């Protein structure tokens, strides 16, 4: 066996930083502080929107890892969020397991079921996986409507106010902080994956699966890991979403929901953290803006929904044709530009 990588090989290379540029590092800290404090000051409606964005950013990270980085396209991410939401509620309320543990368990259940539907793709090309996940979406949604022991009613179930170790998250701001902590942790793990050998192996199986096998990457194992992590994110995000609305609505996890998540990472940018965050923000904010504009422009509110839908579809098509790399690429260029301006000579590399 070859000698392992040991200390004597250590050269001068610095470890890869979590975030590439100084601007991003300062920016991230600033953003977190701004969110934590700012969320206290805004109206409850906007806080609710912000919480939704944060949860969907978390969920989109998982999907981006799976579909953006590893190229394993899933049209069932919302259904796995739903699975997480219902199982978390079941663990916490029906079985009385503490909420934080219930949330993690929900992630594990989602990951497990995700693996099950991912198995066919171990031997097949990606097109089959798209159809397999599609089947997962249909089957899971039907399951939510049927399994009343889990979901209480076909429309969903109430989950009440979350309580962690005696502390009630009655104040939406407190709950937002909890969501923020989860999302930051998720983001850190995502960035860690991207800069480690795992991230590399995900990227290479997407571009050249067979070559990668001959370069020593275990294709099946890598895909399984991607399924596990991606669906874990979905499950946890679903659980957080349930307690955010205090009602787990089956409807929220339909096919359209899954498509929206895919649209997030496409418009945001495939395979990057910025893509997940920007995409989630875009998808939540733009319909709000459209509604605001619509209220002024369209008299007949019945027409509003189809018009919104049309613009939504059009945006997807236009983005894919004219901005196929999503917002993240533009974002990245801006960051690099300003980083150069702001931190001249101070940057390593």
């Amino acid at each position, binding site marked *: 066996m070859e000698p392992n*990588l040991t200390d004597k090989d250590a*050269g*001068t290379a610095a470890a890869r930083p979590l975030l590439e540029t100084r601007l991003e590092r300062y920016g991230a800290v600033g953003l977190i502080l701004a969110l934590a404090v700012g969320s206290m000051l805004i109206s409850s409606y906007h806080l609710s929107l912000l919480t939704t964005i944060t949860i969907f950013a978390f969920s989109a990270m998982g999907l981006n890892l799976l579909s953006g980085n590893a190229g394993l396209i899933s049209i069932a991410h919302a259904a796995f969020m739903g699975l997480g939401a219902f199982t978390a509620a079941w663990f916490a309320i029906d079985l009385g397991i503490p909420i934080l543990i219930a949330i993690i368990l929900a992630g594990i259940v989602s990951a497990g079921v995700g693996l099950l539907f991912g198995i066919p793709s171990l031997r097949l090309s990606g097109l089959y996986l798209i159809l397999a996940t599609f089947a997962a979406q249909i089957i899971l949604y039907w399951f939510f409507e049927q399994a009343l022991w889990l979901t209480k009613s076909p429309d969903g179930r109430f989950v009440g106010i979350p309580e962690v170790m005696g502390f009630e998250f009655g104040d939406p701001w407190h709950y937002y902080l909890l969501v923020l902590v989860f999302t930051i942790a998720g983001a850190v793990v995502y960035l*860690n994956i991207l800069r*480690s050998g795992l991230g590399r192996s995900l*990227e290479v199986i997407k571009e050249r699966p067979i070559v*990668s096998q001959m370069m*020593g990457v275990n294709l099946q194992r890598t895909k399984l*890991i991607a399924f596990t992590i991606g669906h874990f994110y979905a499950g946890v995000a679903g659980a957080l979403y349930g307690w955010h609305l205090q009602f787990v609505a089956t409807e929220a996890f339909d096919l359209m929901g899954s498509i929206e998540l895919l649209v997030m990472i496409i418009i945001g940018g495939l395979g990057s953290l910025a893509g997940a965050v920007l995409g989630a923000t875009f998808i939540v904010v733009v319909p709000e803006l459209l509604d605001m504009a619509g209220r002024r422009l369209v008299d007949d509110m019945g027409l509003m929904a189809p018009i919104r839908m049309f613009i939504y579809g059009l945006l997807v098509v236009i983005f894919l044709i004219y901005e196929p790399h999503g917002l993240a690429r533009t974002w990245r260029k801006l960051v690099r530009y300003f980083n150069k301006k702001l931190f001249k000579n101070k940057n390593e590399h």
Partner: protein
Amino acid sequence: MNEKKSSAGLKLCISDLSMSFGGVQALEGVSFEVEPGTIHAIIGPNGAGKTTLINCISGQFIPEGTMHFGERELTHVRAHNRIQMGIARTFQHVNVYSELSVLDNIMIGGHHRLKSNWIRQCLYWGPYGCSREEQMLQAEALELLERLEMRHLADSPAGELSYGQQKRLEVGRALLAHPKLLLLDEPMAGMAKQEKKQLSDWILDINREMNITIVMIEHDMTVVQTLSDQVVVLDFGRKIAEGPPQEVVKDKRVRKAYLGED
């Protein structure tokens, strides 16, 4: 496995290898041996089965017959495990990951040497993280890039490199795997004379200084004659001659099948 310096090397024994694709016999009863520390050239006209042979050794196809690397029978070792046994390769058509950086491309070669499991990779830092070995691998990769004269390109996407650089990158990627046996599929194809000369010297270095056995497919007979210790000639999936380059060139069947075409 043996902890000794790889000078001991491992012998590759191919015996009675056959492979067919939907009725087309790509390889038929091919046998030969590669002594450790030598350079072996495989020549033959297009469609002779050369790349198929390399693909069998590196695990893309499962042929009939047996292949031994040292003591171990290779045929049913899965592709991703063969690199761990010391078999690395390059490809006829450039197969770098065009969207990844040059550094990431080359680091994939050392992927099988990373021992951290995926949970540790998610954590990255700390005693249970993978940062230490990542750092080591990166340092080694950068050092290798230095030797390839590509250090300044480490952060650019591999797709932006020139053809020659991509070919060099592929060899580097295979070297980072610390192979005992290196399979080169037409490493010089499409290169200018000067580049060929440079690459030839480099292949000799790899063979002599790093003590790596080399099996390569090559069309340029000048290169074959200067580099190789042994030549195997394939034609229509069969081995028609084998021996030192000077002798093989004289072989009548070889002249007819292959050199005659030139």
